[in-house]
C-alpha cells in the first residue's frame, strides 16, 4: 500500500463528496426552508444529464451542455414546484413522499418514452480527458480534478449567497420562521419556487458532470438520492455547511472503506472471503457512520435546534 495510492484514493473520495454535495445542497435547502421531502430530486439529476447529452450531441460543446443541464433542471424544478409541490407544503410528510415518488415514476417513464430504453452517450470533452501528473507522481484524471474544482466554486458561491445576499437572508429567515417572514411582506411563494429551482439546477449540474464519466440512463438518479439523504441527515437538515461536511465525510468514508476494508480483512482471512466480507461491510460503512453520528448528535452535525 503505497502513499501515492492512498493520496489518489483521498482525491477520489473528495471528488465523490463534492458531487454528493451538489445533490445534497438542493435537497437540504428544500427540506430546511419548505419542510418538504422531495424524492424526485434524483429525477432532476437525470433531467440534467439527459439535457447535457442531447445538447452535447447537437452542438459538440461541453460548456453549452452544462449550461443546458442547469437550465433544463431549473425549468423542470420550477414547473414541478408550481404544478405539484406547491399543493404539498401543508400536507404531512407521507403525502409528500407519495406525491414525489409518483413524480419519479412519471419522470422515468416520460424520459423512456421520449429517449428510449438505451443509455445515451455523453463524453468528457477532449481538452479535459486523460490523466495529468500531480506533484508527488500521482497520475490523476483531469476531468475528476475539474469536478472537484467546479464543486468547490459552487459551494463557495452558495455560502456567499446564503450568508451575504438579500435572498440568502430571506432563505434563512424562511427556515427559522415561515409565518413571520410572510407577515413581513416577503413573497414566500416566489421564494419557494426560486429555492426549488436553484436546488434542481444544482442536481442537474451534478447529473451532467457525472453523466460524462458514467452512463446517462433512466433511473440514474435514485441511487445517488439515497446517499444524498444520508448526507443531509449527517450534516443536519437545512444546513449548507452541514451538507458540505456530510458530503465529504460520506465520500471519503465510502471510497476509503471500499478500498481498505477488504485489505484489512485480508490480513487475517483467506483472500476470497476477505474480499467478499470486506466489500459487504464497506457498503454498510456510511450507514454505520450515520448511526454513530446520530447517536452523538441526534439532529446532525450542524442541525438547528428546531
Amino acid at each position, binding site marked *: 500500500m503505497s502513499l501515492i495510492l492512498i493520496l489518489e484514493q483521498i482525491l477520489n473520495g473528495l471528488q465523490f463528496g463534492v458531487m454528493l454535495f451538489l445533490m445534497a445542497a438542493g435537497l437540504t435547502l428544500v427540506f430546511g426552508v419548505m419542510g418538504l421531502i422531495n424524492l424526485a430530486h434524483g429525477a432532476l439529476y437525470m433531467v440534467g444529464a439527459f439535457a447535457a447529452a442531447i445538447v452535447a450531441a447537437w452542438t459538440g460543446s461541453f460548456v453549452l451542455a452544462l449550461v443546458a443541464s442547469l437550465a433544463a433542471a431549473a425549468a423542470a424544478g420550477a414547473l414541478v414546484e408550481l404544478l405539484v409541490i406547491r399543493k404539498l407544503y401543508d400536507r404531512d410528510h407521507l403525502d409528500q413522499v407519495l406525491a414525489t415518488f409518483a413524480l419519479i415514476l412519471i419522470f422515468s417513464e416520460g424520459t423512456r418514452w421520449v429517449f428510449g*430504453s438505451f*443509455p445515451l452517450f455523453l463524453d*468528457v470533452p477532449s481538452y479535459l480527458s486523460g490523466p495529468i501528473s500531480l506533484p508527488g507522481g500521482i497520475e490523476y484524471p483531469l476531468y475528476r480534478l475539474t469536478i472537484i474544482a467546479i464543486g468547490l466554486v459552487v459551494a463557495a458561491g452558495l455560502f456567499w449567497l446564503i450568508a451575504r445576499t438579500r435572498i440568502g437572508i430571506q432563505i434563512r429567515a424562511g427556515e427559522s420562521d415561515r409565518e413571520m417572514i410572510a407577515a413581513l411582506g416577503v413573497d414566500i411563494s416566489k421564494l419557494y419556487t426560486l429555492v426549488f429551482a436553484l436546488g434542481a439546477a444544482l442536481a442537474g449540474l451534478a447529473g451532467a458532470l457525472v453523466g460524462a464519466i*458514467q*452512463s446517462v440512463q433512466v433511473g440514474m438518479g435514485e441511487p*445517488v438520492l439515497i446517499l444524498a439523504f444520508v448526507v443531509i441527515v449527517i450534516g443536519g437538515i437545512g444546513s449548507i455547511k452541514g451538507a458540505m461536511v456530510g458530503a465529504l465525510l460520506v465520500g471519503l468514508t465510502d471510497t476509503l472503506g471500499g478500498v481498505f476494508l*477488504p485489505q484489512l480483512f485480508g490480513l487475517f482471512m483467506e483472500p476470497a472471503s476477505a*474480499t467478499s466480507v470486506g*466489500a459487504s461491510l464497506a457498503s454498510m460503512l456510511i450507514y454505520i457512520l450515520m448511526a454513530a453520528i446520530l447517536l452523538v448528535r441526534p439532529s446532525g452535525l450542524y442541525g438547528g435546534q428546531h
Partner: protein
Amino acid sequence: MKTLTTMALATAVSALAMSAAAETKIGMITTLSGGGAGLGVDVRDGFMLAMEQAGRDDIEVVIEDDQRKPESAVQIADRMIQSEKVDIMTGIIWSNLAMAVVPAATAQGVFYLSPNAGPSALAGKRCHENYFNVAWQNDNLHEAAGAYANDAGLKNSYILAPNYPAGKDALTGYKRMYQGDLAGETYTKMGQTDYAAEIAQIRASGADSVYFFLPGGMGISFLKQYADSGVDLPVVGPAFSFDQGILQAVGGAALGIKNTSQWNKDLDNPANTAFVAAFEQKYERLPSLYASQGYDTANLILSALNKADVDDKDAFRAALKAAEFDSVRGDFKFGDNHHPIQNIYVREVIQEGDVFTNKIIATGLENHADAYAAECKM
C-alpha cells in the same frame, strides 16, 4: 326449431373446442421498464420478429413487464399459469427473477424456455425436464474469457464483478479456465457507478490485464472512467458489457476490447444473415445478442410446434430437445440438462462508420457444455 338451436350450439361448442385445441398460448415475462429495460426490449423484439415471420395465427403471445422485480415476476407468472392457462413461458432476463419463477412454473407442468438467465442451480441440482435454456449457462461466457486470456498470454489478471450471485458465478467461471495468477480480485457494489477507487487499485496492482463483469450501466461507467484514467492494460469481458445497446453509450472507450459471446452479427450462416437484415429493417437498429437469443427461442418453439402438439407434453418436450431449427448461432444442440452445447467466440469492438459494433476474431471454446450438467438428475 329446437333441433336447429341444438345443432347451432353443437357447432359452436365444437368450433370452440377446435380453436382451443389449435391455440398455443405463450406467456412472456420480461423487463420493459426500469434500469435494465434495454435487455428485455431486445429479447421481446427478437422473439416477436420470429413470430411475425412465421405468420401463425394459432399462437398467442402475452407479454408482461416484470420491472426487474422478483415479486412482480412471481405475481405475473401465477396469473399467467392459473388464469390465462399459458402452455409455454419465456422472457426473464435476470437470474434472481428466474430463480423465483422457473421452479414453480415447471412444477405446474408449464414449459419454460430461458432466453437469457442461466443460473447454475437450474443447470445442475434443480434442473427440470420442462426447463430449457436457449441462451447459455451463466458461467459459459466467462469460461471462454478465461480460456482466451490463456491463449493471449495474459498471466496476471485483475478481476472484478458486482457483489451478487451472478457476479460470483462470473469470477468463478473465469477462474475455472484461466491458468495465470490473480493480481487482485474485487467485488464492487451492485449498481455502483464510480470506479475511481478500483481503477487506482488496478494501477497499483502490477496486473497485466483486467477482466470485468459489470452488466448494463455499471459497465458503461467503468469503461469510460477506465479509458479516462490513463491505465492502458488490455481489458477482457463477457459480451454483456459490449452489446449493441451499450456500445453507442460507451463510444470510443471500448474500441479494441476483446469480449466473449455465443453470437455476433457477422456469424456466417444463412439464418443469421436473414435475421440481422430483417431486424434492422423492422426496428431500425442493429440486433444485440439479447435479440438473437429471443429470436432463437421463438424459432425453437415454432420448430417444436411443427412436430408436436403442446398438449402432448412428452412429444413436445422431445421436439424441443431435438432443437431442429436454424439457429442464428449456426450449430446448436442441447445437452442432457437442456442447456446449450455451443461454440463461444472471441469478439473485438470495432467502429463501422458512426456505429460501434463487434467482429469475431477467434473461437474461444468449441462445443462447450456447462460445468453443472453432471449434477443434473433428470
